[in-house]
């Protein structure tokens, strides 16, 4: 699933290739050392056996000296060869992307703020924790942090890069295979570091464009009275103080943007599948699922909760 052994980009493939070579050579070296060790015991004596000291034999010593020198020489060759191989892989990964899609990723405790950069403001997307990228086009991430150090890591697609407050770093990859890829924050960042996952969905270009067009659009006003009631609960019960939904009066940037919330596969930064029951559970008491998260429990009655979740279900 999210594995270094399952590369979906040329970057990850280069590293997997490097890994298998290192594994092969490393295993061979380990086996050689183990063989030498076991064979060296072939003339062992019993623990309570004869105790006399071995006298050094000059002929044997100079012979074994040659062997040790040869082993050292071979070790140096293997290591230098590995160094050269590694540098060549590094050169491949150091190439700059041509005409990349740029996504700005900001790390928060404990969720990912995603913005698709665009000169035209009406074409910017602000979302959270889940993003779509086109297959076959380089995607460059600009990484920042709002609070502590986090780390962006998608094992199938690329190695990791830290998000450090006060710094702006970049990383890029190109997804070659369509699919859904999972990653997790890889730098200890506090109480819910364990539940700070993110999802990247790589789609063929045409599907990606469709997704993009839908994502850029604002949500439509609900027509149904139940939905209007649900939206009112969203606006007045404290949700709108932290969450924004494009096309409504909610525009706070404190918490994850909930525009097109229903189109996401997972909620709570990759913690739960996006189903009605999970959303209701999460809204009622996030602390039971992610203790320490910044979202407080909601003092809603059953009816109010039901209406709110129904409204959220319409945010496709």
């Amino acid at each position, binding site marked *: 699933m999210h594995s270094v052994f399952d590369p979906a980009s040329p970057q990850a493939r280069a*590293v997997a290739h490097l890994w298998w070579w*290192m594994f092969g050579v490393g295993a061979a070296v380990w086996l050689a050392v183990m063989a030498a060790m076991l064979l060296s015991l072939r003339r062992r004596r019993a623990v309570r056996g004869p105790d006399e000291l071995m006298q050094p034999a000059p002929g*044997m010593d100079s012979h074994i000296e040659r062997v040790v020198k040869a082993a050292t020489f071979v070790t140096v060759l293997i290591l230098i060869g590995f160094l050269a191989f*590694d540098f060549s892989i590094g050169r491949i990964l150091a190439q700059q992307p041509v005409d990349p899609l740029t996504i700005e990723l900001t790390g928060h405790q404990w969720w990912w703020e995603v913005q698709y950069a665009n000169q035209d403001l009406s074409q910017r997307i602000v979302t959270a924790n889940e993003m779509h990228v086109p297959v076959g086009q380089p995607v460059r991430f600009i990484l920042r942090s709002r609070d502590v150090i986090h780390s962006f890591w998608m*094992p199938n697609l690329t190695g990791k890069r830290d998000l450090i407050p006060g*710094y702006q*770093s970049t990383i890029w990859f190109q997804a070659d295979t369509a699919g859904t890829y999972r990653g997790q924050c890889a730098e200890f960042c506090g109480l819910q570091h364990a539940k700070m996952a993110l999802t990247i969905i790589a789609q063929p270009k045409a599907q990606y464009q469709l997704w993009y067009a839908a994502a850029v659009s604002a949500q439509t006003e609900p027509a149904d009275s139940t939905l209007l009631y649900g939206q009112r609960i969203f606006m007045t019960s404290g949700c709108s103080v932290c969450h924004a939904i494009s096309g409504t009066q909610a525009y706070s940037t404190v918490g994850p943007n909930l525009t097109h919330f229903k189109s996401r596969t997972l909620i709570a930064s990759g913690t739960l599948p996006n189903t009605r029951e999970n959303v209701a559970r999460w809204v009622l008491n996030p602390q039971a699922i992610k203790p320490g998260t910044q979202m407080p429990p909601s003092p809603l009655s059953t009816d109010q909760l039901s209406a709110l979740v129904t409204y959220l279900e319409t945010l496709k």
Partner: protein
Amino acid sequence: MTGPNTNRTLPVEATVAEDDIERDARALETVWGERPGFWSWLTTVDHKTLGKRLIVTAFLMFIAGGIEAALMRAQLSRPENSLIGPDRYNQLFTTHGTTMMFLFAVPIMTAMGLYFVPLMIGARSLAFPRLNAFGYWNFVVAVVFLYVSLFVNTGPDVGWFAYVPLSGPQYSPGHRVDVWAQVVTFTEISALCGAVNVIVTAFKMRAPGMTVNRIPIFVWAQLVVAFMIVFAMPAVATGSTLMLATDRAVSMHWFNPSEGGDALLWQHVFWFFGHPEVYIIFLPALGMITPIIETFCRRKVFGYTPIVMANITTAFFAFGLWVHHMFATPIPELGQSLFTAASILIAIPTGIQIFCWLATMWISRPQLTVPILFVLGFLFTFVNGGITGVMLASVAFDKQAHDTFFVVAHLHYVLLGGGVMPLFGAFYFWFPKMTGRKLSETLGKWHFWLFVIGVNVTFFPMHILGLEGMPRRVYTYLADTGWGPLNLVASIGAATIAISVLLFVINVIVTMRRPVNAGANPWNSSGLEWSVASPPPSYNFLYAPLVESRHPLWDISVDLPVLTGFRTDRREVLVTTTFSAQPDSRHEGPTPSIWPLYLALCMGVVFIGSIFSPWFVLGGVGLSVIGLAGWGWTGSKPSGHERVSTPAAMPERA
């Protein structure tokens, strides 16, 4: 000879009369011996007593850290387990790392040095016995402070490496991180005291004739590590005691980007210490392997000079690797490449040492005693860890493996395989010397097999878990990640390790009930420490042995010639020249004293108090001044230091 001695020359004697031996032994025991009682326990400056005490205390920390690990493995054995919540888990893994790295690994390696270096070089004590006591008591303050804090919910929870800004004042409210910062302070003071002692003792108190070329490899390793401590520890003290503590307590901005500070500065300062730290743990263990191999292969080790040079080279290289902990940060790639090269090349000197040992075993006839079994376990486990270390040196691969369970696997393979396994072997080897009894071989073999199997069953699956996407420092994981089965295997391995360590503890307890019957040299080994009784008398050596080779007890078929003529009315030690170990002067060593303990408690007031108020710092420093005066008080006694000249019968410098 007793009484004020104006002799400027110390006679060399091939044999000493039995009556003289008895008389001198009794007199020396009077001067050097420890009185019974609690006050004597508090004031002792005997390096063997303090060494054993430090070994026991540090081993208790190993057990404490192991309990923390067991709890963590229990929590991680199943996905979405609710045994331990995130806050408690964060405290557990932080305390586990801090305990193992600062309170177990470095102190126990230092302790082995403080106990054995004087015995191996023919000295009666360390160069600075009271400093040794001061170092031990600072360590005790660290232990008590950390564990009391843990039990009052103030245990640190930001990882043993405490990255800012998470460990900074805004994101770690309260005093948990302040506790961590000061625990580091005390352990750093303790380590520096030990290092200074080892350096001066090894350079200036070797037995006459023990030229630099004849220093035992164990002592070489301790000496090299002592220098590493002197250069590395101040870095972490600057980071934690100076920078992090002042950021938190008095609003300094070392790590505040909004005011010109830099979050990456912490990482550089910490890892400049952090990387040499693991070699500080690892090199003494390597130093223990050579005497074990020599003794049980019944042969001098092949390649004394290459092994010594490899130790020194490793120590130098170790200071040039630290950025490999930071490959995921936005540091220029050209700079990162330098550290890749250094991290790969450091495998070469370590490899040379391993080849020398394999060569020694190949051309000799090894006996598979428990110490040798642990050496074999070291080879089996550490070589694996060393190879994954070389893999992690690659920036490209490290970016996939960094901060995942792959690194957890690597670090435990090298620390348990390369540090703890030789240490256990050393315990079995030197236990008779320290206590006069041999540990049970049968229990030892059970301990060995369960430990090696446990370590590999616990940590091998973690390589796979890391590459399957599991990051470190997570209190739980989702079921559909598929990480459950391997985590369960790892947890079962952890239980195996726990059982093996329990067997070792039982072995020690059972053995200590047996009578003292090991004799001076039960293994027929070659070092000077095996020439004295087991356990050694309080004065170590009756007279100064004359050393004429690297293996004093193997190269002489009769008793060692000795240098006599020392005073027996005061604690007299012989000081020799640095490289050729010619007798240089006689020096009066200090008597037991309460001032090291007092001063260590003052350090406690200063640094623990600094968390709460600057007035404690002022008050503590004032109290310390009294302690320093008391410590160094010599009254109206004349200085106890006289030059001697090289006796005529002394062999020429070889």
